[in-house]
């Protein structure tokens, strides 16, 4: 069958079926457009297949296992506990395929034609779709690029490739390496150490910068670092890999820090040093789309690129590379295609690190506020003063609120502790809607919950907290 010969037509093509792409496609369908969604690696993208969802499944499993094994003061004694990796991986994969089917059904419901293949722009109004059997040529009125990002490689490890894992490999859960070295000190490292240390692996972290989770609030990162080290994980900061060589069945990493050179051996080296945009090999040179110096598609606040017909959303447009950023951009772009005056103008971008304990942040941080020279007031509430935290044996954590000193408008919130991801949305709503401290403080929060800490942090900033001392 020669399909590439005829030119098909559609209102809009969406390239990439990840969070940005499938949401854009569905919204376009809802708005009555004829949509073709071209997806290469499975609906749901990195988020569903090799990112957010599988990592949360493994973190849940690792926590369950760890809860049985860790010494506790509650008087629960557990006998022998064992892991069935195959069953666990099957359970994880089942969660993924259930969610993927859900997306496929939604696409069907809104008349989105899902095409498996890769897209290549031949012009500003035409793509060539390469499929397993043949090609299709499609002309469109508008296109939305949602091709996402992929993991960055660490140069210098090519000769020991059999020992190198990406985050995606680590989430496959094929084996538990006895000695695991994680290169990188960002959120992926924090989440993967959370999984593999709890499964009983001997984990080390090698990070080039002087700080673990260096882009986050220092006090919050400190709580997580304390937790990691208490599980026996070694964290080497300001340390770089000088050389790697095979040594029997292991790989030997030669490391160099400010003070010394030393080496550690590993069964696997998990490289988690960041992600780069998937913007190459798309034929963008045949359009007016421009990339910035780092390879991200340049877009305006309506997600429109420098080519008037083409929009772009999600990771391929830059950071922070978060699925919920892509969700929002996908909706904005789809609505903009339909002539609505939507814009990606959010003031608060929430983000969560599913470490132990969790870190959840939104709006601006204390450091950013200082750097901008803003006059802010800080309110803080520690979990050891929170009834629910004490009764859950989870007192390591706090909530910190950053507000404008004069207007009392909440500018940002940093939280660390158990379950904080679940009430980050309240903090985000407060920032997005420009709430003042009093608005949150005067809202009744259910007792006993972890979320009470947000209200009390606001009260502390106002100098009228009940359960902790107030500033003079």
């Amino acid at each position, binding site marked *: 069958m020669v399909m590439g010969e005829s030119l098909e037509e559609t209102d809009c093509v969406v390239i990439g079926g990840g969070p940005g792409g499938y949401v854009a496609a569905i919204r376009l369908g809802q708005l009555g457009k004829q949509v073709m969604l071209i997806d290469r690696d499975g609906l749901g993208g990195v988020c569903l297949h090799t990112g957010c969802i599988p990592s949360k499944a493994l973190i849940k499993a690792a926590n369950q296992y760890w809860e049985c094994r860790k010494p506790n003061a509650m008087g629960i004694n557990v006998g022998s506990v064992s892991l069935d990796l195959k069953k666990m991986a099957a359970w994880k994969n089942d969660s993924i395929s259930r969610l993927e089917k859900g997306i496929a059904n939604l696409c069907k419901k809104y008349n989105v034609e899902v095409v498996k293949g890769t897209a290549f722009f031949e012009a500003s109004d035409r793509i060539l779709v390469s499929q397993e059997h043949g090609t299709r040529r499609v002309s469109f009125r508008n296109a939305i690029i949602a091709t996402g990002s992929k993991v960055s490689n660490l140069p210098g490890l090519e000769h020991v490739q059999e020992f190198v894992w990406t985050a995606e490999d680590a989430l496959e859960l094929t084996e538990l390496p006895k000695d695991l070295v994680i290169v990188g000190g960002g959120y992926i490292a924090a989440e993967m150490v959370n999984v593999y240390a709890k499964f009983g692996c001997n984990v080390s972290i090698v990070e080039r910068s002087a700080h673990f989770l260096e882009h986050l609030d220092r006090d919050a990162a400190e709580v997580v670092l304390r937790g990691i080290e208490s599980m026996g994980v070694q964290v080497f900061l300001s340390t770089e890999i000088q050389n790697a060589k095979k040594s029997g069945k292991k790989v030997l990493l030669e490391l160099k820090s400010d003070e010394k050179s030393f080496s550690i051996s590993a069964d696997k080296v998990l490289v988690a040093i960041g992600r780069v945009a998937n913007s190459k090999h798309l034929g963008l040179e045949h359009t007016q789309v421009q990339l910035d110096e780092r390879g991200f598609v340049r877009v305006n606040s309506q997600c*429109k690129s420098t080519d008037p017909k083409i929009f772009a959303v999600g990771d391929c447009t830059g950071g922070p590379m978060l699925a919920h950023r892509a969700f929002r951009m996908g909706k904005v772009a789809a609505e903009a295609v339909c002539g609505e005056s939507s*814009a990606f103008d959010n*003031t608060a971008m929430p983000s969560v690190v599913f470490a132990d304990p969790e870190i959840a942040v939104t709006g601006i941080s204390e450091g950013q506020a200082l750097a901008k020279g803003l006059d802010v007031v800080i309110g803080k509430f520690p979990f050891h003063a929170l009834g629910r935290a004490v009764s859950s044996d989870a007192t390591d954590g706090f909530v910190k609120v950053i507000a404008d000193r004069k*207007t009392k*408008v909440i500018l940002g919130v940093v939280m660390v502790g158990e379950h904080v991801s679940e009430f980050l949305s309240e903090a985000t709503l407060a920032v997005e809607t*420009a709430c003042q401290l009093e608005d949150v403080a005067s809202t009744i929060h259910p007792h006993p919950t972890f979320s009470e800490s947000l209200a009390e942090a606001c009260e502390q900033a106002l100098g009228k907290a009940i359960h902790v001392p107030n500033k003079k």
Partner: protein
Amino acid sequence: MATEFRFPDVGEGITEGKLVKWLVKVGDTVAKDQSLCEVETDKAIVELPSPENGSVLKILVEEGHSIQVGQVLIVIGRRGESVPHPKAETNAVLPAENKKAAPVALAPFIQTNPAAVLAMPHTRKLARILGVDISKVKGSGPGGKVTDADVQKYKENAVPSVSFTPSRHGGETQEAEHGTVEVLPLIGMRRAIAEKLSESHREMVHVTLMDEVDVEELVSLREKEKTRLAAHNVKLTFLPFIIKASIVALTKYPIFNSEIDVEKKEIRIKHFFNVGIAVDTPEGLVVPVVRDCDKKSITEIAIEIADMAKEARDRKISLEQIKGSSFSITNYGSVGARFATPIINPPNTAILGVGRISDRAVVRDGKVVVRKMLPLSFGFDHRIADGAVAAEFLSELMRHLSDPNTLLLDLI
């Protein structure tokens, strides 16, 4: 040498406009004839093309501001070239990010520094819908939060020229001698309409003939064809039939397809049939022109009218599209009226007013029967013709509407 681009004379006696939107920014490379900005004039939004290739050195007018013909809007020259007359600088401040040179401009869309704006998401959306840069709005809410009311007030104060139609926009209230009055500026489209109609009423000798025509057959013909054309996404109204019938009558009585020049003492009969169709828009009446109606089929005219009406309502009608009519039709029947004394659209000398078709009791063969009747009001300038010719014209027109088959005979 840098070139100062001035707001050119775009014809139709237009002397001022409003700069709606810049399509380029400082640092952009522009090609000759590339659109630089959108300008709203009395009757349409036009895009002004660049006079030459070059780089945008300076933008002198802020979006939303009114401009006069001859005023310098933008300076174009070689990249890095100094701008002449530095004292010509105004406070036309563009967002800082727009000042950065970029190889290709991103399509402008209201960009604000989100962190600097305190407003609920729905308020920000309202601002975008109203075209307000919310970062410029002073918030009256708690902590300086911008409210919906702030945005609306800013819109009304900053761009009063949007308040064209008195009944639909509020104005400033004043205490006058006999009570409170609301004062609306007479500007933009409303003023253009007022001036043109005054001229028409002052100069011409208006006479209106009225009659009703039995359109039973036309109604059934249109019903049948409507369904057929609907399958091709064409909405068939009565208007294309009325246009065609008018063309046939005008061919027979060409005096009503004319223009009068009192100074030269001439009546100029036009050998082209361009029909202006009055379209009601939220901002006021616009009269786009369907050209060469004698050469077009009823279906073609139907499609063209639908497209034009939409463009007029979206304010996308170009100056070209409202020029050059030889005759006009106004359809007040669509809003329920039956008869009117329509004002002639200069330089035309006649206008046909179309009322609403309704069931009326009429006498046929000595019996009272119910028929579908179309009320018509034909206005003409008595200077160019007398009542008898006008009556003949109207009866010719009515003959074709009551028996649409004759249209076929006269058209072929």
